[in-house]
């Protein structure tokens, strides 16, 4: 049995098998497809999830987001860690 994952700045997040981020043409929206669940992520969540490719670490993802949206780094780091921890607790993110 694996324990609860703690997301840190050095974590390398990815979507586990069985969780997919897809653009759906019928709704013209991004959707997260998971075991017997469908989520409609908001724009910020989409920007984060698209970068969870199993290569970039959280630090790198935060750097990119800060540049793309010219937002303060501390705030972005807090938001990204919070969202990824929540998703990891729901089995939607692995590291």
């Amino acid at each position, binding site marked *: 049995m694996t324990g609860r994952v703690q997301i840190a700045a050095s974590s390398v997040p990815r979507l586990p098998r*069985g969780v*997919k981020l*897809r653009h*759906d043409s019928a709704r013209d929206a991004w*959707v997260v*497809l998971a*075991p*017997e669940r469908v989520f409609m992520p908001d724009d910020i969540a989409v920007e984060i999830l698209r970068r969870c490719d199993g290569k970039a670490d959280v630090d790198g993802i935060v750097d990119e987001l800060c540049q793309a949206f010219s937002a303060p780094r501390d705030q972005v780091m807090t938001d990204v860690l919070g969202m990824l921890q929540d998703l*990891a607790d729901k089995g939607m993110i692995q590291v």
Partner: protein
Amino acid sequence: MNAPAARRIPPPVSLLAELTHRCPLQCPYCSNPLELERVDRELDTATWQHVIDQAHALGVLQTHFSGGEPTLRPDLPELIRHAASIGQYTNLITAGVLLDRAKLERLADAGLDHLQLSIQDSRAESANRIGGYKNGHAKKLALAKEVTAVGLPLTINAVMHRQNLDHLDEIIELSVELGAKRLEVAHVQYYGWALKNRAALMPTRAQAEAAIDLVKAAQERLKGVLVIDYVVPDYYARYPKPCMGGWGKQNLNVTPSGKVLPCHAAETITTLTFDNVKDKPLAEIWHRGAAFEAFRGTEWMAEPCRSCARRELDFGGCRCQAFAFAGQAEATDPACTLSPLHQELVAIAEREAGAAEPDFLYRNPRNIQAAALPAPAPLPAE
């Protein structure tokens, strides 16, 4: 802005494809109708593929292959491959007793995204008795290990009732041990076969309340390890469940013979008629089919639902339960404390749960005739 905009029908999210009603198990709470569909009435491969294509075009994101036992269909890998190739998220809902490693690998290769395995209890003897299948439990446990070994995400589904509810803690531990990432704890919903077996299944209020506390504690303790989804025992609840997330709002169900239902139990509402995929395009059925239109929105509601602040939250509850208990599908679900029938519903539940459990009426073709008889009168009040 105007009326048509307000009535715009959103695209469906999921398709429940009931490939067959055949099943080696005989669970007395089976969600299939009492009138099981015969094998010679089942849709062929090409028709199912066309249904999946139409569902995809309509906006369906997830296709759930179910039954009966869907692995009885030799074309299951072909159907999964087809659904996956057009971009459907594919899920297999199975009892697991007919699968082995080689078959699992074929399904995974075909593009299966996720597998949901049912268990009947944590203890073999009881599980085999409830499912009416010899040695089923051991087969399921062996299969669960193969599922995770193949790398497929696994959900365990456990239907709960008075004869296994006291083992819920063991079922949660077993799910973790088997490597499941998700557990569905679903109290029996009482229509069809389960309604016939209600007295053998209904838990006591104390049992139900203990289960709620236990699940809450486990959800907290197992964060990031096991997601537990919980379907509450609604006879003892205050408000009804928001059945199907709203009638005709998210889900499409296609039966083995091609009937299109808003929910898998909708055929218990004998006043409804259902379109068939062999006669009409799926889009037309979704948008304009009489059964889908019957309980969309809130205009069909009577009081106390019509003016209720929760009408968009729980949609008046379950139409099948309203029909089964009140005799009117438009009635408020009697599970709701605001229903005039609620006290009667609770009284029956408490009486049945307090009495000795009768034998199961197992779900099988032999028992269809017995099931067609009216339910035994509730036990007289002491």
